[in-house]
């Protein structure tokens, strides 16, 4: 990509839209920030608008993956795929035997089979990819978010609370003893 500095403000704005970066007007004070954002986005190699169609298809499958709650359901899904593959093979044998006299249908059927099988091979892999990515990402993110939000560490708050509770308990226990009352009388 040619130097971002030489592009017009409108070009920068269009590029930001392509990389789906939310932005305001590209003026002198905001330009360098947006150029930096674009450089980062280009380095990551985010997909651009032109390739959206295929990206959406995968995204549909992956988002459908996220909505299904547990791994057991995924196992069932992959199990059903395993079942359907031998089924295809059985059908192929049957059709080959019945259509042995005809030369045309079998190549057609084979053509379809070849087209369908690669997509079926793809689906289990996207499933496994979708499983691998969310869980490792969630665990490092959760403790980081938890740790950075507090000014006073959590354990300090607990210790302080216990100290106050112990003090109150001592006060109450000393109030209940009757020996001191007799001394006053």
């Amino acid at each position, binding site marked *: 990509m040619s130097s971002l500095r030489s592009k017009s403000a409108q070009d920068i704005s269009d590029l930001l839209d392509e990389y789906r970066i939310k932005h305001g007007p590209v*003026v002198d004070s*905001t330009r360098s920030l947006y150029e930096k954002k674009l450089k980062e986005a280009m380095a990551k190699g985010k997909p651009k608008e032109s390739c959206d169609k295929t990206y959406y298809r995968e995204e549909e499958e992956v988002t459908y993956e996220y909505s299904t709650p547990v791994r057991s359901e995924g196992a069932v899904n992959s199990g059903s795929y395993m079942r359907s593959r031998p089924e295809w093979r059985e059908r192929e044998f049957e059709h080959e035997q019945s259509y042995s006299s005809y030369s045309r249908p079998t190549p057609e059927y084979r053509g379809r089979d070849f087209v369908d099988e690669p997509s079926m091979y793809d689906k289990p892999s996207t499933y496994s990819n979708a499983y691998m990515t969310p869980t490792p990402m969630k665990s490092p993110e959760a403790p980081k978010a938890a740790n950075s939000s*507090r000014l006073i560490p959590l354990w300090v708050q607990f210790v302080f609370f216990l100290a106050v509770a112990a003090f109150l308990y001592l006060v109450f226990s000393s109030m209940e003893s009757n020996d001191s009352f007799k001394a006053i009388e």
Partner: protein
Amino acid sequence: MSTTTQKHRDFVGEPMGDKRVTALSGIGEILGEKLRQQGFDKAYVVLGQFLLLKKDPEMFTEWLKDASGANSRQAGVCTQCLREWCDAFL
């Protein structure tokens, strides 16, 4: 547990008028000087930048860190200060 400082409360509690950039929460003398050198000598100019970035907290935080050398905590506190001021007065 969010504890706001007196400086934060002072800023968010009234229109900023002509207050200096050091009146912003998180911006001390050193960061204030860096911002002044770039022309951001008043709090309202920094507000202007915040609004130009469409009040996006992440964008503004990043801009502030680049422009003034603020760390994440200072930039975050300043962003929060401006957000609350905008919620109250804009």
